[in-house]
């Protein structure tokens, strides 16, 4: 499966900047990397000679591991920097950190930051490809792309599906990137959760909003659960974890309102017994949670491959210009 469209972006900052054709291009290439990853010899050298730096200003084990593995399988030199432990504690600004790194000539910068827009700001100051691995509650584009790939492979298409996103929408970058991506691909999106966890004027994003899990799940093809952060369970946004589980936790009874072949997704890490019933999460007939993790590596390989191609083209053009001056 190959498409004639070429993704021309210099960075991947969000789903907002992608066209439906860009999304299809990325997913098509990711499909190929899924096959590569299932082989005994997974190694390729499309990123050989390139340096990838993972800058995580916020804790993450899974996403960072996924990016690291993706880079290594493509032959890049990968370095991890745990930023919350280092320079920002010493008062260095984000831009100074970026300029310092830039001087080390990285080619791909993978950035996670607790503040929305921080990755955009950083991208303006460096001359390498920047990949947003999550900025505040703004965007998490590779998560949305891996979710899309999972859905496309499970359902055979990525359009005209009824998709429910359930839980803490307000604080979730996963929800924002997903509703943008799934909307661009012309799906019908429902958001389900307590009104205290819904962002303001979310009804203006072309989605249907429910605060009743059963009504919201009626006839859906995909059920996407979101993680409820521990710090939001203490009575500030919801009364308690157990009341949340009772009203919004996914169990077999609530799931019975969805289509019989509806799939269950979760970006991880899961709170079993808070937003999702443990047995349901492990049900290999319904849950695609493990596939999501697998697709994550493939999608990140595809994105980095495409960004590296664009980076090489841009650099070749610069060299040409210099030669002819």
């Amino acid at each position, binding site marked *: 499966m190959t498409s004639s469209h070429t993704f021309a972006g210099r960075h991947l900052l969000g789903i*907002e900047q992608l066209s439906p054709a860009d999304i299809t291009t990325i997913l098509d290439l990711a499909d190929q990397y899924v096959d590569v990853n299932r082989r005994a010899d997974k190694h390729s050298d499309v990123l050989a000679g390139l340096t990838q730096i993972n800058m995580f200003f916020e804790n993450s084990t899974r996403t960072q591991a996924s990016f690291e593995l993706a880079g290594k399988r493509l032959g890049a030199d990968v370095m991890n920097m745990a930023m919350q432990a280092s320079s920002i504690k010493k008062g260095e*600004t*984000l*831009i100074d950190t970026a300029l310092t790194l830039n001087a080390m000539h990285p080619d791909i910068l993978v950035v996670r*930051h607790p*503040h*929305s*827009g*921080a990755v*955009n*700001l950083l991208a303006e100051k460096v001359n390498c490809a920047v990949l947003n691995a999550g*900025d*505040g*509650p*703004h*965007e998490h584009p590779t998560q949305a792309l891996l979710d899309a790939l999972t859905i496309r492979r499970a359902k055979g298409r990525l359009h005209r599906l009824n998709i429910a996103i359930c839980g803490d929408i307000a604080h979730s*970058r996963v929800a*924002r990137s997903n509703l943008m991506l799934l909307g661009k691909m012309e799906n019908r999106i429902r958001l389900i959760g307590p009104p205290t966890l819904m*962002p*303001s*004027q*979310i009804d*203006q*994003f072309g989605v249907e909003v429910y605060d009743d899990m059963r009504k919201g799940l009626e006839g859906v093809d995909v059920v996407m659960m979101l993680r409820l952060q521990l710090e939001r369970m203490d009575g500030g946004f919801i009364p308690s974890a157990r009341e949340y589980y009772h009203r919004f936790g996914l169990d077999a009874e609530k799931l019975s309102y969805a289509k019989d072949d509806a799939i269950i997704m979760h970006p991880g890490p899961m709170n079993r017994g808070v937003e999702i019933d443990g047995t349901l999460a492990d049900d290999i007939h319904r849950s695609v949670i493990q596939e999501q993790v697998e697709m994550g590596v493939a999608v990140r390989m595809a994105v980095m491959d495409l960004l590296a191609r664009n980076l090489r083209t841009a650099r070749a053009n610069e060299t040409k210009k210099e030669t002819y001056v």
Partner: protein
Amino acid sequence: MTILLTNARLIDPQAGTETLGWLQITDGMITEIGNGPAPQNGPEYGGDSFDCGGKYLAPGIVDIGVKVCEPGERHKESYRTAGLAAAAGGITTMVTRPDTSPAIDSPEVLEFVTRRANEAAPVNVRPMAALTKSRDGQEMTEIGFLRDAGAAAFTDCDRVTANPKVFSRALTYAASLGALVIAHVQEPTLSKGAAVTSGKFATLRGLPAVNVMAERMGLDRDIALIEMTKAKYHADQITTARALPALQRAKANGLDITAGVSIHHLTLNELDVADYRTFFKVKPPLRSEDDRIAVVQAVASGLIDIISSMHTPQDEESKRLPFEEAASGAVALETLLPAALSLVHAGHMDLPTLFRALSYNPARRLGLSAGRLTVGAPADLVLFDLNTPFVLDRFKLNSKSKNTPFDGRLMQGKVLATFVNGTQVFPTK
């Protein structure tokens, strides 16, 4: 010393008129005003004569809420640079804020500031003082001493005195001295940490947001306290449609309340933040277009009394940060008038109405004799062209800090000359 300004379109915000005429200045005061050509103009006339070329002459702007960063952060703005910027912007009186470091909360600091202002700024400066010590909202300042030392008004600026007991006592004490208290209307817990106004844009950008209702709640609380204390009160910035009915009721009930709005809330909306542009981060945050239109109409109707620059210099370092962490505020002394003229060009109000909000109302509220185009008033004047188009270049501003949201914007209307007490302070000869 006599100067005659001839052939000028005189804007009288008090009478609400705009007429072609002339104006005579003697010893820094307006001594005669007339329609048509000046009778005593000619070679036989003794004083200086100045042909205004048919351009507009209005009372100079009285700008309440200017932040000059002395003492503490002179690298961001000094009295010299702010004064030059004000002169270039047609502002003849800067009413400066006490949110410096340290805060202007004692007669000693106020005296320092007054001295600095007098030696460095070419325009009038009327400093305000803090309402509570260190603007902490705990103990009131020496309101009596500060008033004797020349404090124009008392304000903790963008900090809300959250404790109603402290605030009501300060209001009561200030009222007994006839002192004006200026407050920031905002429910402090609801607005804590907010960078933008909640709504579709905030959701899309994933930024911490505050509901517009926080302003209304802040205003409602203050109105109750004014009713209780009979204080003389001014709300620094009313920026939302939902707060306007409360303001209207309070005025109708005879409370001594006025309200202002910043030029940015009249000319920009939340979407201008676009891709996390921190020069558009102000406090309170920019609002929706519906709110903007509502407050523009409130200025036109007179419900909102005063337009201010809310001039807040910030250096590049405090703005070149992720949006949430970046400092709030924008410089505006030089852009106030051109931006405000866009309201006239858009047909929202006429020039006398605009200058009522820029000059006459703020002067009257502070008990100053400026802001009027009448005989006996100080000759604080601005001469401007309504139509000259120009593209704003932030690096050409006089302010030390260049954090204007209008950089690169096409603006219309330019200051040609500014006079303070009859002396031309811009352009300098």
